């Protein structure tokens, strides 16, 4: 029996009345990839923050390489050979890659020798792990995939033997994620121990050797990945059986609701992002737009939602929409029967510091049902919120909490409840399950399909191919502002869509 690289014994941590970690014990063998899976708020990040010295555990012991180790701060964690790649990168954006790597690990008072040494070591690390970065580029000039590599290099430069990655694929495209997993494989081959925190089952199955499941602050199981399956893990995570596939009957498309002809959108810096697209969405169908982020899907949604001007023709129920100037804002769109679940719920969908019941009113605050004379009828609004919270199973069921105090999944439920409950003719949905846990994903997907079955039109934009496949009745692929082609989900596969997403035109495009 080899000595475990990391051993946690009976770790407990409470924040006020909330028990974030309850008596957690875990043992990770060296040279393996160990997954920790659990829903948002299950306590995964808290546990890792304790291991990295961000929080101090109330109880419990940390053993590193068979030695009991105290980790009061990040400095101690680094000294113990632990490196951490946070979900939100901790990089200085206007510094170069090299400066970011050196920061905090300088060799002396002067910068020049430190930078020179780091440049040399970086070359070796690149060779060893095939982690290529340009040391002289500034962080704000490189993409997120590259930024993540900088974070990994930062840890390696500090001689980390244990690498913790917190939700590393949340911001990555599928191709970038695959690349990350190849890097992790390589690191494991070199003997590093890796802890991968995620709520995505697919990643656990693909990348890890062993997996621990957390639920509500407790470790519910630790199993060998090869001896389990996604369904079992999902059940352990959520505490009940979860349907991983969306159950739906074939669509019965009706008359066209949304007709787009030659739509063009130019962004604020003058770059054309949507370059003349045609698309129709019919009543009773879900049209999914697939594509790598940044190929014009966001701009398309924003024009439809009244957040950005465009040119061309868009008809809603046969009536042309104003695409710029008066009558082209979100209020007008809602009056025309278009509801919008925006891509970034924290910036566009909610005001994080406002109560849930206030957030439920946004966009519909002029609804006569919420008015009493010249005043808002807050009591009516709160009653309506309570009803929506119950129907959409928002947890905790408290309309007085600020939006920021809900988990990602429950935030999204508030937005979806607000939009779907208006009974729109057309629902625009952007990244409905980004940062949302499995239980909530299942629920939100069900709601979207239910709306379709009522004969409504739905336009879905998602970078998750899995989601596109399971929800869409028809799939359009966007690349560089164009629609590369439309496919029916049962007549295509990930490979073909992947090619279209990369701009390789199919025969029917």
């Amino acid at each position, binding site marked *: 029996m080899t000595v475990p690289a990391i051993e946690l014994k009976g770790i407990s941590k409470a924040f006020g009345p909330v028990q974030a970690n309850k008596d957690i014990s875990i043992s990770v063998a060296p040279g393996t990839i160990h997954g920790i899976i659990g829903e948002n708020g299950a306590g995964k990040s808290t546990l890792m923050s304790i291991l990295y010295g*961000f929080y101090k555990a109330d109880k419990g012991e940390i053993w590193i390489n068979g030695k009991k180790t105290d980790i009061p701060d990040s400095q101690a964690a680094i000294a113990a050979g632990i490196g951490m790649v946070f979900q939100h990168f901790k*990089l200085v954006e206007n*510094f170069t890659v090299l400066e970011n790597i050196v920061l905090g690990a300088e060799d002396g008072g*002067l*910068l020049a020798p430190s930078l020179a040494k780091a440049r040399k070591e970086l070359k070796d690390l690149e060779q060893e792990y095939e982690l290529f970065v340009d040391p002289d580029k500034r962080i704000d000039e490189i993409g997120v995939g590259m930024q993540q590599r900088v974070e990994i290099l930062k840890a390696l430069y500090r001689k980390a033997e244990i690498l913790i990655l917190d939700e590393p694929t949340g911001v990555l495209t599928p191709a970038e994620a695959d690349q990350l997993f190849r890097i992790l494989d390589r690191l494991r081959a070199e003997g590093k121990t890796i802890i991968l925190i995620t709520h995505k089952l697919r990643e656990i199955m693909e990348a890890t050797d062993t997996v621990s499941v957390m639920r509500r602050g407790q470790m519910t199981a630790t199993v060998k990945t090869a001896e389990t399956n996604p369904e079992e893990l999902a059940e352990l995570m959520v505490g009940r059986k979860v349907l991983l596939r969306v159950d739906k009957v074939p669509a019965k498309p009706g008359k066209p609701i949304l007709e787009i002809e030659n739509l063009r959108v130019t962004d604020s810096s003058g770059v054309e992002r949507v370059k003349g697209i045609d698309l129709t969405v019919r009543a009773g169908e879900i049209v999914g737009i697939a594509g790598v982020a940044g190929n014009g899907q966001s701009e398309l949604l924003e024009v439809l939602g009244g957040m950005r001007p465009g040119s061309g023709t868009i008809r809603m129920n046969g009536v042309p929409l104003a695409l710029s100037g008066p009558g082209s804002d979100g209020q007008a769109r809602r009056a025309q029967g278009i509801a919008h679940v925006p891509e970034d719920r924290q910036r566009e969908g909610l005001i994080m510091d406002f109560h849930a019941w206030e957030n439920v009113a946004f966009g519909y605050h002029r609804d006569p049902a919420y008015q009493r004379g010249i005043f808002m009828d807050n009591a009516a609004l709160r009653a309506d919120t309570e009803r929506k919270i119950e129907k959409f199973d928002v947890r905790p069921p408290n309309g007085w909490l600020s939006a920021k105090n809900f988990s990602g999944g429950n935030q999204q439920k508030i937005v979806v409840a607000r939009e779907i409950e208006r009974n729109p003719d057309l629902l625009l949905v952007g990244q409905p399950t980004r940062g949302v846990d499995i239980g909530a994903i299942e629920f939100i997907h069900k709601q979207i399909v239910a709306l379709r079955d009522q004969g409504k039109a739905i336009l879905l934009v998602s970078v998750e191919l899995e989601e596109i496949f399971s929800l869409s009745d028809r799939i359009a692929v966007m690349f560089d502002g164009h629609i590369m082609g439309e496919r029916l989900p049962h007549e295509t596969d990930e490979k073909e869509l992947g090619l279209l997403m990369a701009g390789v035109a199919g025969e029917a495009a």
Partner: protein
Amino acid sequence: MDSFLTLIQVLDSTVRLATPLLLACLAGLYSERAGIFDIGLEGKMLMAAFFSAAVAAVTGSVWLGLLAGIAASLVLSALHGLASITFRGNQLISGVAINFLAAGLTVLIAQDWFQQGGRTPSLFAGGRFEPITFPFAETLSGVPIIGPIYSELLSGHSILVYVAFLMVPATWWVLFRTRFGLRLRAVGENPAAVDTAGVSVVGLRYAAVAICGVLCGIAGAYLATGLQAGFVKDMTAGRGFIALAALIFAKWRPWHAMWACLLFGLLQAVALRFQNIDLGGIVIPVQAMDALPYILTVVILAGFVGKAIPPKAGGEPYIKER
């Protein structure tokens, strides 16, 4: 030749008048680069001006005065640090409080000590920083062009003027060539990056605020014991705010800060020199000239300089999070 001499004299007073601005501006630069906004530069300078003049008047030693000024400014810095770093308070409010505190306390203590209506006694030799004359300044003054530039413009300032201008390359070097500078800039942009790298955010920010205090102290001491001979009520006259405007104008860069401060100094010098300008029949009144530096401040702060991007974490207390 006459107009050339006038020019040299105006430039000479530009340098003198720019000195307190430059010191305060660099003080603000250290603090804001570390993410602590400081609108209390004015108050710190004022407090330093008073204590330096008071101690110099009482002891007769300008150096003791300087030390007292720096100490007074540091006390206010510590207050600002305590409020905005340790207790994570609002940095603007803390700065405003410091300005009010300094404006009131200086006059109150001055009246209590000296009974001269809120001022200190005038300082005489020993209580002031004397001009330093460069070697051969006298001999060379006869040489055309170079002579006046050397003997009038470069020579003949007090030591604090040279300190202020040497602080410019020194600040640049510290900021961009040392470990401390790298960390200081990082903590103003993304304190979480510094924290996770195992470096103390609190320690760095206190260090920056302390440097700010020392420089403001020198600036105040120069006002009362170099530029003028004693403390009078509100003698900083908004210089702390002009220094802040210069800092934004310079986009938080040391060399640009120097040029910005020289520009403001020039405006003040012109206003002092040409009290009433006659422009072909239209006389620009002295009040308009005096207001010029302040008007420019407003124009600059109104965003005339184009996009000035402040340090990203500026003004935000650092709260550890996952």
